[in-house]
């Protein structure tokens, strides 16, 4: 399938900022499931530099906007040829040892609720069955409910609440996988939305679990499935913060507002 992505993130500042600096992970890498045909990241008045591919295979670059700056709009446009690999990540260059993804982070730290949830998995650990079971467990326990959680909520908080969006479900899935000894990570990307998909945001998040026999395999608890040709994988990390497509800072005081527009379309 050929997917066309348009994604804009616009910031506007109440008072002009002295400087804006952002670290971007907005550009996908090739794998068996996706071939990047065209991709661009642009912003008026910004300079881009310090680009590299990190050990996890993420393409990182740095954007700076000199002040005074009233606002900035980051525009992403791209075309990707996708294929269905049943969620299995193949042909992706990376060098981080999978057990590194057993590390706890602040957002995915284990709590009693997470331990109890993890204990419910019955299939032998490390198997595809166990992974599916975990994914279903999260989908059953955390009802997809927009607007109830904050961006900085931890997995333990979310379990207690029993509700959340894709970020929350994904962090819970990661946390319980790690508790049960399965390396897991947070993935951000795009999803071609249809009638049956949950979450109308085309910008999406899901988890990847490392299974000894298959390697990294994606699981999307929000849609109770493994990523297929409708998905574009962009960035991965230990949790939502670590994998964030944009991490930035704008120096100066005053209110800041952000507007995100994403569209993903299949080319006929």
């Amino acid at each position, binding site marked *: 399938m050929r997917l066309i992505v348009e994604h804009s993130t616009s910031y506007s500042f109440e008072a002009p900022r*002295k400087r804006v600096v952002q670290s971007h992970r907005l550009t996908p890498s090739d794998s068996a499931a996706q071939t990047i045909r065209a991709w661009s990241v642009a912003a008026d008045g910004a300079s881009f530099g310090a680009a590299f591919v990190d050990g996890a295979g993420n393409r990182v670059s740095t954007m700076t906007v000199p002040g005074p700056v009233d606002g900035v709009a980051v525009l992403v446009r791209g075309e990707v040829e996708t294929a269905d690999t049943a969620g299995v990540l193949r042909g992706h260059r990376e060098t981080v040892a999978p057990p590194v993804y057993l590390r706890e982070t602040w957002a995915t730290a284990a709590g009693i609720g997470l331990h109890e949830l993890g204990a419910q998995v019955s299939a032998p650990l490390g198997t595809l069955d166990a992974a599916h079971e975990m994914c279903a467990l999260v989908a059953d326990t955390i009802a997809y409910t927009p607007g109830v959680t904050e961006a900085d909520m931890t997995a333990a908080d979310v379990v207690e609440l029993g509700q959340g969006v894709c970020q929350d479900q994904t962090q819970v899935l990661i946390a319980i996988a790690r508790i049960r000894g399965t390396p897991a990570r947070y993935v951000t990307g795009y999803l071609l939305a249809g009638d049956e998909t949950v979450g109308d945001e085309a910008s999406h998040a899901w988890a990847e679990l490392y299974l000894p026999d298959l390697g990294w395999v994606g699981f999307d608890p929000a849609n109770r499935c493994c990523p297929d040709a409708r998905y574009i994988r962009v960035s991965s990390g230990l949790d939502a913060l670590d994998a964030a497509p944009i991490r930035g800072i704008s120096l100066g005081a005053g209110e800041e507002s952000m507007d995100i527009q994403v569209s993903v379309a299949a080319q006929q």
Partner: protein
Amino acid sequence: MLSRTAENLYWTARYVERADCTARLLEMGYRMQLIPTADGGFASEWESVLTAAGARGDFAERYGDAVERNVVSFLVFDAANPSSIKCCLASARNNARAVRTALTTEVWEALNRAYLEFQELERTPRSELSLPQICDWTKRHAAEVRGAHENTQLENEGYRFFNMGHAVERGDNTARLLDVKYYVLLPTSDMVGGGIDNYQWTTLLRALSAHRAYHWAYGGDYAPSRIAHFLILNRACPRSLVHCVNAAEDHLTELSRVTGQRTEANDAAAALLAELADAEIGDIVHDGLHEFLGRFVARNADLGQKIADSYLFGKV
């Protein structure tokens, strides 16, 4: 030199100078209240002191009546008033401390001593402290810092920024002080009250420690236009506006020689200096002394901003 270092040195000097100026303002207010007015009462100058300090509204909100004790509390001891002598000394020391290695031990010790001794001053019962004592104390410590700097500091970039801080702050303060009493310098006020106005002029001069200097420069007679000339256009007077701008311009020129680049701060200082050099005191008084001083304060502030911009202060 790191911009932050330059900025800290510049502000160290500005805060020391500001403490000194606040002390001089208070001294003026104190002296003025000692003269009887024609109607048998005493002149209260505390309102004008607060106006000159640019803090009248803030004061009224928190203290109410402008009586000596309140004004002293506010301008000397108040930790919530950023222009109080207490806050100025603390800010000066904080700025200096951040660039400790760029200052000689003597300068640092002078600053540190002022800061520590102020704490002693604070512990002294107010009944045992007279305002003139506090003012003398402040002026002495400010002079110690400045003197240590002149005596021991290498005349490098940092020296220029430090002294530029003094010049810009002092110009601002002289202008504000003058503005408060501008009307006593107007020709019409000559008629008003003779002896009392005379006293006001000398008080103004005394507050600027320029009382005797005036006599050396102009002979015995007080005349409003001569006093105005002395404090605005006489380069020899170390607190005059032209002297301060001249000093700032000198330091900027020296800086541009070292760094090999002229900045917009150089141009701003040169333009302001040229204007003052050409000015006639008669015209200034005729066109409006108050308006002139207001313009000067704005242009001086603009010079300060251009210095900050040219040397990357505070930009990240």
